């Protein structure tokens, strides 16, 4: 047989160098050499030689697969037995950026029933969250079994990081945070934050206690924890600064974590010497959201914001901070504080006395501030639960302030203020729907440093209960309304006391047992002082539970310079001897009110105003 192939081996007589020579060699001469070998050796020798070379060539990287005839007929074919299938599928899945056309619809017969249940042995190590792409399709949770997830499957051990991925886990080996409450995780977390800043991604802190010193949060980063009591960022002993600093950064979100300033080991006085130790220090920043953060035990403030705009503090908790829970000054624009729990802050402030609790504080150029739905407890001394204004002469006034639906529960009726409005040029203020209880004064507009002046105040729908006094405005406001409030004074003090009020309305308020049990001038339902002119006081209810006690006057015009006040249509019940006290030269015609069971025996008229009336 081999003789058929026995040909003379001839070297090419015109063999040339370079490609032409070797082309001829491979095309022709090599084959001739094979034939020559076949002639040279016996079949046995040829087989031996062939076997050796085939062994070498086949020995390298050979893959085997088998397909059984029976498999094809009855039981289907395992995918590992189908040559090329893996490449085909990979090409389909990875090789195109366009929607794939690899569809179950293309499967026929038995395979048309494939629904995923046939997939077994899936290795979790091959599942990458970062590459999971639902493609806008529907992911039905009902098909997802979580029964096999163990404690090691928590977020803290799942690799949730890629160089450009959406989430960076600080415990990923690339960063190496420990979170055991002992190790210094400053460098690890700061590296994660810086990396996130480059890629505009989220830094995720799994459950744990991370000991740090002065972390800086760059722009375009979300700092995400697992919950207020699960992810705790706690300052090291002798830390150099804030828990988190957001300086000149924009578009930052901080949420679901606790910031523990560890003030016992850093700063305990809460005074200016401790101003470097805050929960979050926000300076020169815009578009910041602080959400579900528990800021506690910081040496100075829970959150301090200076020269900021568009800040939202939502559903946070502040407690045991050395000075204030939230403090803002020197330019605070477009800020919302909502749904926060505030209690027992300012305990470290040495200047505030033995139990010096302080509250939320904004001053000096505050514009467009909303404080709503907060619960603030335990302010004491001369501290307010909420203070907004300019605080002293020389600072810029504030405007467009809304304080609504807060509950302010003081420490006792002998100290603490609910809302304090301070400084000059305070305008466009709405205070509505708040509850004041267990506190010295509900709303205060008096400034220890200067005169609190302002206009366009709308104080409506508030409730004052168990307070020593309701509202005290002692600077001078105009174009305002104090309407629809309830003063249940419980024989403690006045309801409303205003100085230099003008062009305003006090109407529809209910006063019960204002004043003290033994009536005295100055403990009345409404007191006008200074130069209060051109006001309307109407439709109010002045009610004492017992004749001869409590409020001395329904309206006490307690200054000869009051004028042009229109007092009418009020209802007086069981008042003391004189129901209105008119000292000013009111020139308006007197309009009566309704007088029931009053103590006066005659109708008194002063300057045209009915001041008292015998009961019918």
């Amino acid at each position, binding site marked *: *047989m*081999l003789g*058929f*192939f026995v040909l003379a081996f001839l*070297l090419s007589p015109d*063999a040339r*160098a*370079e*490609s*032409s*020579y*070797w*082309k001829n*060699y*491979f*095309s022709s*001469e*090599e*084959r001739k*050499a*094979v*034939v020559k*070998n*076949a002639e040279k050796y016996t079949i046995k020798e*040829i*087989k031996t*030689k*062939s076997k*050796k*070379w*085939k062994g*070498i*060539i*086949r*020995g*390298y*990287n*050979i*893959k*085997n*697969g*088998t*397909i*059984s*005839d*029976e*498999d094809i*007929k009855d039981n289907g074919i395992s995918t590992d037995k189908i*040559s*090329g299938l893996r*490449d085909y599928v990979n*090409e389909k899945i990875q090789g195109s950026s366009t929607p794939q056309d690899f569809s179950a619809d293309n499967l026929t017969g038995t395979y048309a029933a494939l629904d995923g249940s046939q997939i077994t042995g899936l290795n979790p190590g091959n599942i990458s969250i970062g590459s999971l792409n639902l493609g806008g399709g529907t992911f039905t949770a009902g098909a997802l079994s979580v029964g096999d997830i163990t404690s090691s499957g928590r977020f803290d051990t799942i690799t949730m990081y890629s160089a450009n991925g959406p989430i960076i886990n600080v415990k990923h080996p690339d960063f190496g945070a420990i979170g055991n409450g002992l190790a210094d995780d400053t460098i690890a977390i700061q590296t994660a934050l810086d990396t996130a800043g480059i890629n505009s991604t989220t830094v995720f802190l799994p459950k744990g206690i991370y000991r740090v010193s002065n972390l800086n949060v760059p722009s375009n980063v979300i700092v995400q924890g697992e919950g207020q009591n699960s992810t705790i960022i706690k300052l090291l002993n002798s830390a150099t600064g804030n828990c988190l600093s957001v300086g000149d950064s924009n578009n930052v979100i901080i949420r679901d974590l606790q910031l523990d300033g560890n003030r016992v080991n850093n700063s305990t006085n809460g005074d200016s010497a401790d101003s470097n130790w805050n929960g979050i220090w926000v300076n020169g920043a815009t578009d910041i959201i602080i959400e579900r953060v528990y800021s506690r035990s910081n040496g100075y403030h829970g959150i301090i914001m200076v020269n900021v705009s568009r800040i939202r503090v939502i559903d946070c908790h502040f407690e045991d901070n050395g000075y204030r829970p939230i403090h803002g000054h020197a330019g605070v624009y477009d800020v919302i504080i909502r749904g926060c729990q505030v209690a027992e802050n300012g305990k470290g402030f040495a200047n505030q006395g033995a139990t010096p609790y302080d509250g939320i504080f904004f001053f000096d150029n505050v514009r467009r501030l909303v404080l709503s739905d907060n619960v603030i407890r335990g302010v004491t001394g001369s501290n307010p639960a909420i203070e907004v204004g300019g605080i002293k002469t020389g600072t810029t006034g504030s405007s467009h302030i809304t304080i609504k639906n807060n509950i302010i529960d003081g420490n006792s009726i002998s100290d603490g203020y609910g809302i304090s409005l301070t400084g000059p040029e305070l305008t466009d203020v709405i205070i509505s729907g708040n509850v004041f209880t267990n506190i010295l004064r509900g709303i205060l507009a008096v400034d220890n440093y200067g005169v609190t002046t302002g206009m366009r105040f709308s104080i409506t729908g508030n409730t004052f209960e168990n307070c020593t006094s309701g509202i005290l405005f002692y600077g001078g406001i105009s174009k305002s309304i104090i309407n629809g409030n309830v003063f249940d004074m419980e024989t403690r003090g006045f309801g409303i006391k205003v100085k230099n009020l003008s062009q305003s309305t006090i109407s529809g308020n209910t006063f019960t047992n204002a004043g003290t049990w033994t009536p005295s001038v100055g403990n009345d339902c409404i007191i006008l002082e200074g130069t209060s002119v051109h006001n309307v006081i109407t439709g109010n209810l002045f009610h004492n539970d017992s004749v001869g006690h409590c409020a001395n006057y329904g309206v006490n015009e307690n200054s000869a310079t009051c004028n042009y006040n229109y007092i009418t249509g009020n209802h007086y019940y069981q008042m003391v001897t004189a129901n209105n006290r008119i000292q000013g030269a009111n020139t308006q015609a007197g309009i009566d009110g309704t007088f029931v069971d009053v103590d006066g025996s005659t109708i008194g008229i002063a300057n045209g105003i009915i001041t008292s009336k015998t009961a019918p």
Partner: protein
Amino acid sequence: MNKKITIISISLVALAIIFFGVWKWSSPKKITPPKSTLIQYKETSPESKKEITAWQKYENDKYHFQINYPNNWHIFTDEAKTDLTELTLQDNEIAKQGGTVFWSNEDNIDYTQENKPEDFLLLGMMVYEKTNTNLDDFAKLLGFTQELQSSSVIFKATNLEGKEYISLGATEKDPRVAIIFQKNNNFYVFHLGFIGDNQENLKVMEGIVGSLSLK
């Protein structure tokens, strides 16, 4: 009497044979165990694929293919874009051939069989055109025949599948090996020259061929 007995006995034996035959014919056939077909194929390992991706790249826009080769190898393309011309293969079969490219571990291939360096490696690729021919038949025309103890194994390149053919040695030292891919009437033939019995040489050449991608 004895004759009768003999006839009866023979008849009984004959009947027994007939009954046995009928029974055997009518009984269920024995089920033959399913046959399995062994498929062997070669592909580049994932580790090698990484290395190969980092190699230098050659693209041929005339014959529409792309291939990688090691950074310390050299390419010779003086006939890489020649037109296909006719040549006669075994059994006087006519085909067209052209587009020859060579790769070598040496920086020139200006040698002959006699004076080439000891460690000289040469990988040659040629494009053929042959109508109405399948891969195995075409390999036979190149000399990879059963008579010469030739055999083949499936070989996977980047986006197509071919076969690696092995035959007897071209010389005393080197086997004759070619990897052939078919796309329609075109055949891309790679000759693996002078690999001897060195698997590393084989690995490099198979790595080059395995990176072939047709556009």
